[in-house]
Each structure stands twice: as structure tokens, then as C-alpha cells.
């Protein structure tokens, strides 16, 4: 049942501020809502679930007044640093402006899929958590706020619960920036979510384990956020060559560490582990197009992800610059990022301004290059090989945040028969997040995955069902094309597993390159199968 939660209620001493139940969320066609898993009482006594009954951060409940004060003081210390150029030059201007100029018009709310699909719970409004942040900042750091309190809009009393609720709330937004795209002023409430995450990570050491300790830290220690070492990477390449030989009845030698190549291709290393057919497809296409390319086994050279882009500028900078250095060591002419949205945005766009001095190497998305295979006739495709309904997911990072809209559509129209490719409602820059963005796809601790699948991923499920509404019968195989690793992770866990899309509707998911290889005229057998599980 929806309970109105005012901004100043964020620190209320309720057992759960907004207890979310499966009855609250928007119903979905043919989906039986099951009650959410119950968390044991002893777990809830130790760790904080008091925001909405879910936990993404495993925050230990403070036991003493000193611990509570430490939490509050640490938060305030971090908040101050968000607004000083020495500590936050990278986003000082956008953060300052978005903090100061929200007109509280709520235009952003209806644009947010998490808010709408949750049954419009107040705490998930895109402007709720930033408004808490604004009022705290105003109260503790401005003269008007200190003197006038609530009369100047500074009506949030800071306590440890406020801090903990904000920390968890920072992980109830995928930073898709749909809210920013509709704001009449230009305020970016998604950016403020990211700034909050930064404050928690960079000052208080709070971040989801999967994202930090087993994410960016693991990445820099081993070479990959998956823990895959250079030796394991090379073993995976051999395995992929075997997959290719099985599919093509011939061998392709995947080039690794080829000095001076035109292109260093860098994948989200999760592809090697979970979807090896994706790097296999890239290798097949690149070989067929006659490109001078290579992978790298250099530590920091084969893992394209940069989790820092979601939560920590220091981690972000370290990873981006190390990736660039790895490419420079190989002497390649440019880096091409495989099918991974955040990796593309991080390396090609956001990191661009870190490329000072000789930290320079061109970087681009794989999509225009793949488009050239089609438009320049470098590879021959037979669209009749993809004679099944296909819909396209637009990864937020590539599409709304980089404007890469048309190459993938040009490709799809070329490699599918007329009428087979159908857009989802709200496609292109208006797309909805898959629900796995900003790290959600890899956050599976506690019961966070349940929240993600039920709330964050629900709009995408709705979009896919609408796209295929004329052919939902399971006798018709269908393909959900998602050219992004984390989006595929969300598809696997939410669409396939949780919503049963494969079983109920015979929908499978995959990247764009698999579909391209499936249409190549000189492959002896289909590359895509509705029977096989990779």
C-alpha cells in the first residue's frame, strides 16, 4: 500500500520507511506476482533493510551513539568535498547547478521507469533523493539554511538513518538520465545520484561489494572484474576458437597482442565468461571484413569495463588511463570497444578529457564499424537467415548518452527480412533502461536482485511484450537484440529467468554481432539457436 513519504521523513525511525510489496508494483501480462522473500529477523537486526525492505549495500546497523555520530560526521565531511574543486573538479559545475536549481515541478517523475513501475512510491521519485541532499546541504552549509532552517527549505534533520537511507537510495536509480532529458530547466537528478554514490565510496568506503571490492578493485588486481587473469584470458581465447571451428567448420586464429594493429578490440570480459559466442562473432566478422585487428592479453588490456563510471571518479580515472596505456604499449592505432554500453561511454566519451599530454589514443564504439560491413559490402549477408521477429534494446549509455542511434538500425534493416525488425515503444534516445544499468546487473547480494528484477527491469519487460504483442505465441521464435553486456545480464536474470520470456514466449536474447554472423552467407549452419544455452 502506497504510503506518502515527505522529503523530511527520510530519517523517520520506522521499521521500514517504504515497505515495498509485490502488490504495490505495476502488474505485467501473464506474470504471477509472488510475495517477496522474507528476510530473517536476525539479519535485519544486524544489517539495514529499513529503506524499503531490500539491501544492496549490507550496511551494519550502528550499535552505539558514537558510531551513529561517526556516520553522520563522515557523511557531512564528504558532502562538503563534493562542492570543492580540489576534490570534485570533474563534476563540480554540473553538481552545483543541479543542486541549486531544481524547481520541484515533478516533470522528471513520470519519465522514471523505477518510479512508475514501483507503483509510484515517493522515495523512488528521481527528485526525492536529490531533494534530500539539497535540503541537507542547505541546512548545514549555507548561511540562509543555518539561520532560517525550514523557512529557507532546509527541513531535513540529519541522523544515521538519513545517511543509510540515502546510501541505499543511491542504488535505486540506474543513472539512465531519462529524468534529465525531460527536465525543463536541465537539472540532472541522475547525476546527483552518482554524486551521492561518489560521496559514499570516496569518503565513507561504502559501495556494493560486486561493484567495488569484487569489481573495480578486483579488476585492477587481476586484470578483470571477473577475476580472469591474463593466463585465463588466453585459455578463453582458445575455447572461443574452438566454438568458431564448431560453427564454421574451419579455424580462425584470433589475433592477440599483435603490435601495431589498426584496431585493439576490447570487450566487457564478462562476454568471455558468460557469452563467448559474442567475442566469437566479432572475430568471425572482423576476419571476414579483412581488418587488421587484435585483442590484448596485457593486464588492463582485455577488460573493457570501468565500474568507476558508476560510483567513483578515482577508480574511474585509474581504470581508463590504464586501459589507454595498455593500448599504447601495443602500438595500435585506435581502440574499438565491443558491445558494452558503459565501457563505451566511459572510455570514448567521459574519459576523453583525461587524455592530456601523451595519454592520447583514438577510441570509438564498435557500432559504426559494424555498420560499415553492411554499407560498404565488406561482408555478404542473407537476411532470410534471420527470418524471425527481432526487437532492439537501446543501451542508455550508447544511445541517450552518446547519440549512437542509427548504425545498429541500419544493420538490422539489412540483415533481417522486411518487416521482421520492429522497434519497441519509446525507442532511440527515449528508450528505457534495461534495469541492469549502473551496476545493477552485477549486484546480486542480499535481496537486491529481487528488487532489481521486479522493479528496475519491469518496464523493459513491458516494452518487449509490447514490441512482440502480435507474435507472442511461443511457436514463433523471437530475438531480443541487446548490444550491451550488462543489458544482456539483466535480460538473462530478469526477462528470461524471472519473467520467463524464454519459456512462455520463446524469446531469446543476444547481441547484434551474433545476429550478423547468423546472416552471413558463407556460414554453414545457424549461429543462433533457440535450443542451445551458452
Amino acid at each position: 500500500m502506497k504510503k506518502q513519504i515527505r522529503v523530511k521523513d527520510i530519517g523517520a525511525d520506522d521499521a521500514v520507511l517504504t515497505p515495498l510489496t509485490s502488490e504495490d508494483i505495476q502488474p505485467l501480462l501473464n506474470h504471477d506476482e509472488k510475495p517477496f522473500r522474507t528476510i530473517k529477523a536476525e539479519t535485519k537486526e544486524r544489517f539495514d533493510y529499513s529503506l524499503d525492505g531490500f539491501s544492496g549495500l549490507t550496511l551494519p546497523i550502528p550499535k552505539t551513539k558514537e558510531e551513529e555520530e561517526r556516520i553522520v560526521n563522515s557523511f557531512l565531511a564528504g558532502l562538503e568535498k563534493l562542492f570543492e574543486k580540489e576534490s570534485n573538479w570533474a563534476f563540480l559545475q554540473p553538481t552545483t547547478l543541479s543542486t541549486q536549481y531544481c524547481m520541484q515541478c515533478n516533470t522528471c517523475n513520470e519519465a522514471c521507469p523505477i518510479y512508475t513501475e514501483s507503483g509510484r512510491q515517493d522515495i523512488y521519485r528521481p527528485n526525492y533523493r536529490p531533494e534530500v541532499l539539497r535540503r541537507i546541504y542547505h541546512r548545514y552549509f549555507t548561511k540562509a539554511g543555518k539561520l532560517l532552517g525550514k523557512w529557507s527549505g532546509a527541513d531535513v534533520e540529519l541522523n544515521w538513518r538519513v545517511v543509510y537511507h540515502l546510501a541505499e537510495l543511491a542504488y535505486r536509480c540506474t543513472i539512465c538520465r531519462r529524468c534529465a532529458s525531460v527536465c525543463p530547466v536541465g537539472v540532472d537528478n541522475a547525476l546527483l545520484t552518482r554524486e551521492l554514490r561518489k560521496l559514499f565510496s570516496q569518503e565513507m568506503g561504502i559501495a556494493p561489494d560486486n561493484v567495488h571490492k569484487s569489481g573495480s578493485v578486483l579488476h585492477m588486481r587481476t586484470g578483470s572484474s571477473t577475476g580472469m587473469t591474463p593466463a585465463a584470458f588466453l585459455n578463453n581465447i582458445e575455447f572461443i576458437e574452438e566454438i568458431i571451428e564448431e560453427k564454421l567448420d574451419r579455424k580462425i586464429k584470433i589475433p592477440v597482442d599483435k603490435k601495431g594493429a589498426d584496431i585493439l578490440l576490447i570487450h566487457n570480459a564478462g562476454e568471455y565468461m558468460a557469452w563467448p559466442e559474442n567475442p566469437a562473432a566479432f572475430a568471425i566478422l572482423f576476419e571476414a571484413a579483412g581488418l587488421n585487428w587484435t585483442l590484448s592479453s596485457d593486464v588492463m588490456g582485455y577488460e573493457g569495463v570501468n565500474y568507476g563510471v558508476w560510483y567513483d571518479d578515482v577508480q574511474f580515472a585509474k581504470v581508463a588511463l590504464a586501459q589507454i596505456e595498455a593500448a599504447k604499449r601495443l602500438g595500435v592505432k585506435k581502440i574499438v570497444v565491443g558491445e558494452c554500453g558503459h565501457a563505451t561511454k566511459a572510455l570514448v566519451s567521459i574519459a576523453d578529457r583525461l587524455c592530456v599530454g601523451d595519454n592520447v589514443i583514438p577510441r570509438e564504439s564498435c557500432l559504426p564499424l559494424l555498420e560499415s560491413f553492411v554499407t560498404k559490402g565488406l561482408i555478404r549477408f542473407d537476411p532470410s537467415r534471420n527470418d524471425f521477429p527481432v526487437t532492439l534494446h537501446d543501451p542508455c549509455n550508447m544511445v541517450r548518452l552518446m547519440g549512437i542511434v542509427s548504425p545498429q538500425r541500419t544493420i538490422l534493416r539489412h540483415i533481417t527480412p522486411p518487416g521482421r525488425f520492429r522497434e519497441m515503444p519509446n525507442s532511440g534516445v527515449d528508450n528505457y533502461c534495461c534495469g541492469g544499468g549502473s551496476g545493477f546487473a552485477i549486484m546480486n547480494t542480499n535481496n537486491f536482485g529481487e528488487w532489481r528484477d521486479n522493479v528496475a527491469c519491469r518496464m523493459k519487460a513491458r516494452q518487449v511484450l509490447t514490441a512482440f504483442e502480435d507474435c507472442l505465441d511461443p511457436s514463433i521464435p523471437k530475438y531480443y537484440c541487446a548490444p550491451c553486456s550488462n543489458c544482456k545480464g539483466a535480460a538473462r536474470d530478469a526477462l528470461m529467468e524471472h519473467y520467463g520470456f524464454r519459456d512462455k514466449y520463446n524469446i531469446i536474447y543476444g547481441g547484434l554481432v551474433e545476429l550478423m554472423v547468423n546472416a552471413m552467407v558463407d556460414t554453414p549452419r545457424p549461429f543462433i539457436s533457440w535450443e542451445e544455452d551458452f
Partner: protein
Amino acid sequence: MLSYFITGPFIYLSVIVFVVIAGYKVMSYQKMPRHLRWDLYPVPHQGPEGSKYQKIDFYKKVPVFSIAHEMLAMSQEMIFIKKAFDHNRRLWIGTWPLHMGIYLSGLWLVLLVFGWMLDIQGEMMLIGSNLIAWAVAKLTIFVGAAAFTMGLFGSIVLLWLRLSNADLRYIADFVTYLNLCLMVAIFGTGLAAWLTVDPFFDLIRQNVIALLTFQASPVTEPAVVIEMLIFGMFLLYLPFSRMMHFVAKYFFYHNIMWDDEPMVPQSALENDVKKSLTYSPRWSSGHIATGKAWTELAALQEKEAEKQHEETNSR
């Protein structure tokens, strides 16, 4: 004495405070370090072909900059508030006339000055004698009346929405209501003065000209003095309030969402960023080495990566 103070020194003080504080704020935003890329698409000046990232080797190509597309997008936002129209129609019904009232008020002030130059007094009925003066007189009345009417209508609609809509009421703080009441007061007093004592805007024109020529205003009519008082209070308060979003909007669009300037060696951008990289962040988390500059923090990782690279090669 009071009317002398309100229609003269008080307005000068308000204008000075507004200009100084607003100017200081604009300069402070402008001086902030160049931030990392945070564009949001579509970026209008990239033209009909769209994002440069859709092209192979985009960095070798001269970036497209279509001022016409940018102007069109800006005009749609500034004049029509297109995003509110598209995504929050109920709000737009109030916010558009309110903003039009503000724009028309600016035009009306210009017409008042123009009218003084043409020596307009009362309603110029004799078309034959001075067509231009007659037209300016009529236009001044029309624009002024429209400004006050639209502004008042819009602010009342927005205030009513705030009070009657649970969603808007729940997020609003005291300041939001204060701002809307102030807008109702500005436009309301302007409309009231026009309707009751100043049908041709002669009195307000005399006051504006007196201010521009540093003379004492001859106007003592209470309705007009109250109008000036409210306007002065608004100017004093404006630069400290979120109603300065008209300035922030420029930065949001041009400096953030549409800022796709690439890093070019030896450019002003590179110099700015190099300076920022010499700052030492004060973050306290364990994974951030204290006392190191940003360049050193990143270099730590490069050294570590190189070391691992050598270890890998030696195996």
C-alpha cells in the same frame, strides 16, 4: 518621502544588488573547472546527421556545428518551454504564460523608454499627427497589459496546482510558495495599477525615465509606488533564489548537456584540465591515497599495471 525613497533610491539599490550578486554567481559558475564529458543526446548543434560517435574515425573529421539547429532548439525552449509542453502539460498551462509575462515585461520596459523618446503622453488618438507615436503608445498598452495578465494568470495557476495537487504539494518547500506568491504580487500590482490609475502607463513611464536620468520621480500614486516596491523587493531577492534558473539553464544546456568539445592537444581545454589534475583530493576512503594529486593517483595505477605487465611477460 517614502514614495521618493521607494521609487528612487530603493530601486537603484535593488538593481545594484541584483547586478552584483547575479554577476558574481555567473562568474563563479563560469570559473568552475572544466568538467568531464556529461553530454545528453540529441545535441542540436550536431545537425540532422546526429552524433559524431555514429561515424568511424569521427576524431579525424571536422566536427559539425550547426548554429541554426542550436538556435532553433534554444528558441523552442526559451520561448515555448517545449520540454514542459511535451512532458508536463498541466504544469505548462501555468509556466508558459508566467514566463511569457516576464518576457513581455522586458519588452514593455523597452517600449516605455521608446515612448518617452517619442514624447508619448496619454493615449495618442491623432493618427494623422504621429503614426509611429500612436502605434508605440498602443503597443505599449497592449504589451504591458498582456504581460501583467499572462504573468498573473500563470503564477496563479502554478500556485493553485501546488496547493491542490498532492504530488506537487508534497515536494514543495516554503520557498516555492514564497516565490509563487511574489510572482502573483509583481504581476498583480502591475495589473492593478494599470487598471485603476495608470491606463496609458504614463505614470510608470515617468518613473522609469526618472530612474534612467537620475532625477527624482514625480510619481506618488500609491498603486504605482506599491508596484515599484514589490518590483524592488523581487530584484533584491532574485539573485539569491532558484528563480535564477534562467541563468543556470544556459549553463545546463551549453556547458553540460551540449558540451561535446573533444580534447585537443595544446588547447585551452587541455590546459584547464591539466591544472585540475594538479589538485589533491581530500577524500578519506582507504582506496584513495591521501595527499596525492589526481595525476599521481592515476599514475599509481599505471605503475601497478606496468609492473603486472612485466610479471606477466616474464612468466
